[in-house]
């Protein structure tokens, strides 16, 4: 590996990061207009649609909800849609648009998939093209790609209102937020985006199979379908569930290097924009920028580390004279640098789309996606979930260090007190509890040990990765784990559900508690939550409170994997 190649990889990471920073403001302003419920040019076309929804559903969008109502309505919606999708998947065999006559899914499989898509995880234990009909993909799954993303943003909006408002119980209306985000942001963006993808060669058709004649004269059935439409929301909504099993490594999902780059940008677009929206909402855009810089700092560090390790290649192969970057499990079309970057992006956000197999990364290169998710996917993060997860850490950072300026802690004009701390801790505890707790269960039970293909520390990483991905609602697979068993479907389903809603509910409760507080104007004596010092403090808090917990598991997984590999040990 020449230093020029290494440098070009770092260059790619930096150019990408710069573009993300540039995207934040336009997307942030767009989201802010929706947050405020302002009339946009899109209202002329979509306004009647929005009003029609409300009329049919009997909703008054102006009737504001307190945090309990907001949470109850949200949960009801999630439970009903999980049951709906479960039914669609179970009954697939008897439903239309199933030309290949695929059978219904098993109860555990259907449950797992329903939860996976409702929680914005999109964990796929199956290969989409061989297991799901087009109806299941569209009605059962793609719909959640929109709704789960919109739900995440709705929760973020409610939390923003908690910070921005004072002495009120009202956090907005869940149904209005859900409808507006879907109609005015996700749908129009995805239509434009899908058209771009179609133009670049991504299929979009109701047909199911193409009969291709190979050079040898044999017939090959190639599965196609509404790929571009699912691809667009898969990225923008940080869902990650691909049409094909190979996900964004498949040429039909990700045909060119440019599309690959655009896909990465689109994963971060709304998440980065929401940091700016937050700044606007609390009346100081510098607050939003500080969050974005802290996120990007963590991101660049992770992506660069992953690229550095991938570029170094596999030490086991060096003995055999195979030099150069680690190319196992990667698309030659994208190369090692773009694959390392994609892995960092998809796990920093809660996307989970992959353009390379993370299982085949070097041990330490694979540590980065794992660690990104263990932090709670708050580095840009999932749409909505990234910023609300990050704000939990901001609250903790303010609380840990804020006292050092001689005032009781406050963040963007709101005092942080026992109730917020209790709820933030509650939401943060869920990550180690599910990730480490369920991994511990899986690594001792025979049903769990049957999963990983690899032995030794790498096998441990495979199991750890699965529970990390599920709990953090990422959905990317390390691969190498046979997860389509009742054991894994069940446990991972639990992890996804708890990982989503045991965070969402405390976040809404914090929003409610903050909204009821008075607004404390900032002065020279207030704790500064903009600027380099604060950014450094945020990063340190996230690494120490969020990251250190996972150090033992990382030591026994990727780190041991790397060190034993370097020592020439094979398992």
């Amino acid at each position: 590996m020449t230093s020029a190649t290494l440098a070009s990889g770092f260059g790619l990471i930096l150019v990408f990061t710069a573009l993300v920073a540039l995207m934040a403001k336009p997307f942030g302003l767009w989201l802010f207009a929706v947050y405020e419920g302002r009339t946009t040019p899109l209202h002329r076309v979509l306004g009647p649609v929005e009003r029609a929804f409300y009329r049919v559903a009997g909703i008054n969008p102006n009737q504001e909800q307190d945090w309990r109502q907001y949470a109850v309505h949200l949960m009801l919606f999630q439970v009903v849609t999980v049951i709906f999708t479960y039914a669609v998947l179970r009954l697939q065999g008897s439903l239309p648009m199933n030309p290949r006559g695929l059978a219904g899914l098993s109860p555990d499989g259907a449950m797992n998939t329903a939860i996976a898509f409702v929680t914005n995880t999109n964990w796929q234990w199956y290969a989409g093209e061989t297991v799901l009909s087009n109806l299941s993909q569209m009605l059962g799954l793609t719909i959640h790609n929109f709704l789960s993303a919109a739900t995440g943003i709705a929760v973020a909006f409610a939390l923003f209102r908690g910070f921005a408002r004072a002495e009120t119980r009202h956090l907005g209306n869940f149904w209005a937020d859900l409808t507006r985000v879907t109609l005015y942001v996700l749908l129009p963006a995805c239509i434009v985006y899908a058209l771009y993808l179609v133009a670049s060669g991504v299929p979009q058709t109701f047909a199911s199979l193409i009969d291709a004649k190979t050079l040898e004269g044999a017939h090959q059935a190639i599965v196609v379908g509404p790929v571009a439409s699912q691809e667009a929301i898969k990225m923008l909504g940080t869902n990650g569930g691909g049409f094909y099993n190979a996900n964004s490594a498949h040429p039909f999902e990700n045909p060119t290097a440019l599309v690959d780059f655009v896909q990465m940008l689109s994963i971060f677009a709304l998440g980065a924009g929401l940091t700016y929206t937050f700044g606007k909402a609390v009346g100081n855009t510098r607050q939003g920028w500080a969050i974005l810089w802290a996120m990007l700092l963590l991101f660049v560090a992770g992506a660069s580390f992953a690229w550095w390790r991938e570029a170094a290649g596999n030490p086991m192969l060096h003995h055999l004279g195979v030099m150069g970057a680690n190319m196992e499990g990667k698309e030659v079309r994208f190369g090692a640098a773009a694959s390392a970057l994609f892995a960092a992006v998809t796990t920093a956000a809660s996307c989970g789309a992959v353009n390379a197999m993370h299982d085949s990364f070097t041990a330490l290169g694979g540590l980065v996606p794992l660690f990104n998710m263990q932090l709670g996917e708050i580095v840009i993060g999932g749409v909505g979930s990234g910023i609300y997860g990050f704000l939990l850490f901001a609250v903790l950072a303010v609380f840990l260090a804020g006292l050092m300026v001689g005032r009781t802690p406050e963040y963007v004009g709101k005092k942080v007190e026992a109730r917020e701390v209790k709820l933030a801790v509650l939401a943060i505890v869920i990550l180690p509890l599910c990730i480490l707790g369920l991994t511990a269960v899986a690594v001792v039970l025979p049903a769990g040990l049957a999963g990983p293909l690899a032995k030794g520390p790498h096998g441990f990483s495979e199991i750890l990765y699965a529970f990390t991905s599920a709990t953090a609602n990422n959905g990317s697979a390390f691969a190498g784990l046979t997860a389509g068993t009742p054991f894994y479907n069940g446990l991972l389903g639990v992890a996804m559900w708890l990982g989503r809603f045991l965070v969402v509910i405390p976040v809404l409760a914090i929003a409610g508690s903050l909204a009821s507080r008075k607004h404390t104007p900032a002065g020279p004596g207030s704790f500064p939550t903009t600027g380099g010092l604060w950014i450094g403090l945020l990063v340190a808090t996230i690494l120490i409170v969020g990251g250190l917990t996972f150090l033992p598991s990382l030591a026994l997984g990727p780190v041991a994997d790397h060190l034993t590999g370097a020592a020439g040990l094979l398992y």
Partner: protein
Amino acid sequence: MSQPTSMFSAELVVPALGGALRKLHPAQLVRNPVLFTTAVVALLLTVLLFVGHTGLSLGFQIQLIVWLWLTVLFGTFAESLAEGRGRAQAASLRATRSDLVARLPDGSKVSAATLQKGAVVMVAAGELIPADGEVIAGVASVNEAAITGESAPVIREAGGDRSAVTAGTRVLSDEITVRVTQEAGQGFLDRMIALVEGAQRQKTPNEIALTILLVGLTIIFLIAVATIPAFARYAGGQIPVAVLAALLITLIPTTIAALLSAIGIAGMDRLVQFNVLAKSGRAVEAAGDIDVLLLDKTGTITVGDRQASNFLPLTGTAPATLARAALMASLADETPEGRSILRLAQEAHSLEVPEVPAGAEVIPFTAQTRISGLDNNGHVVTKGAVDAILRSVPDAARGTAAAELRRIAEDVARQGQTPLAVAENGTLLGIVALKDVIKAGIRERFAELRKMGIRTVMITGDNPLTAAAIAAESGVDDFLAEATPEDKLALIRREQQGGRLVAMCGDGTNDAPALAQADVGVAMNTGTQAAREAGNMVDLDSDPTKLIEIVGLGKQLLMTRGALTTFSVANDVAKYFAIIPAMFLVLYPQLSVLNVMHLATPQSAILSAIMFNALIIPALVPLALKGVRYRPVGAGALLARNLAVFGVGGLIAPFVGIKAIDMLVAALHLA
């Protein structure tokens, strides 16, 4: 009040050791969940030592257990020591209060402990006042040195703002009738002493929130450690319980948990040393959060008395003539204002100050005439308010001289000064301007407060013209002129409506509503009982300037808590690097590269980490008790400094400390 002796003097440390052991009682320990967890783990290992087979050497296990118990004991010792210091302070307050005897109007004597609220007692010269109360008849001078340390007697009289008396203080002259307002043991001093001693200490809201966070971190690390045996089993090995316990205890925030209540007690204690008693820890915390400070002009911003600044003669009068007349009129005037006129005459006109001439008659100031002066065998000089002087010389009052006098007086008032007219033998001479003297250094104090983000508002009864002039000169941010108690209350409410916290001090009964409304209300001890009950602090020295220091003490308390929390959490990084390689070495020997500190052996690494974790507690006790120094710079600069010292320092210190202990442990063959 006695100053505390050295922090670690035997008279404080020895009882604290006993207290540390008593605090091991589970019912007490459970109030501190982190230390409780540590104790449970220590107990578990102690039991396992006798019944389990851990595969670890006995010596290593015993050392581990000893250090775990020491961790708990250091925590309870810190709290005990802080309480002991408070108790020493309180003892000197309490000393005067035992065995008080009350004399009832019928002459019978009863123990003060039996007095009911509303009872009436008589106190004559030489007797101690038996209970907190209010003077309902008579006037007396009282020595309050017992509580204030100030030996100059103060006047206590029925009605007005000086009617409150405190139990344990001594009447020096006359006799007063006192109505008891607080039963024995219920007086505000009793309540505050109890707070200082720690007996009635409630956790403050901020402490509660911090405790929740510490519990949360404990749970997170409990999960991290409890899952390790399963992970180890996957890797084909086993980690001894003692080692897991060591990792858990080093990771959970024992340092700040051990020092948390000591910091709180020490904060209250610092206030007491400052002769301020707070009714709750909450009030001290609120002091740190203050955004607006309401300060009375007189006594706080200006010295209580006005000083002569200028002689302004009428046309046709020589300045020296006016000065000499003013000097003669003030010869017998013992007030500070009168003295200042003599001083100005000496300095500005080099006049000698003679003795009062023999046979001269002093014209005393009375409320009726409002003039004073000297009648030297028919040669009469007088001074007084302009209107009063004009009334006393009816002939001159109608002339043009009177018009000029009035005009000069108005000019003087506009400059923030008070005019005093001078007349000699019925002729008007001119005006002596009396100036409010701004306290030395007060301008700098306000600049400091501004840097701290605190806005100062001057409260004065002066007219807006004068108030504006004084405000500009003193550098105060804002002022409230011609202020009535209602105006004060309205101002506080308005600021609070805007989300700001307000502090003020007051002494009169009509201050009580504002004192109660303010987030920090400091009542002067010389004030009325109503004021003392309404405020949440009482200043025994009755010095309104102290409000500024109280804010600093509140900030210091919060800063100390924050600094040690940050330090404690930052320590975890190094502890991981000490224990993880040592612990997992049996599973993957290659993990020894993580032993960045090159600790001698796995056992010495674990032992060193747990020893550092325990020893850091007593090492930080002095800081916890003294408090982190507060500097009035902006929050940004303060944060930068404290983050560098306690954040970065907290990252580095354990690396150095653990390595040093490890070298010692290896040298002594302890592990």
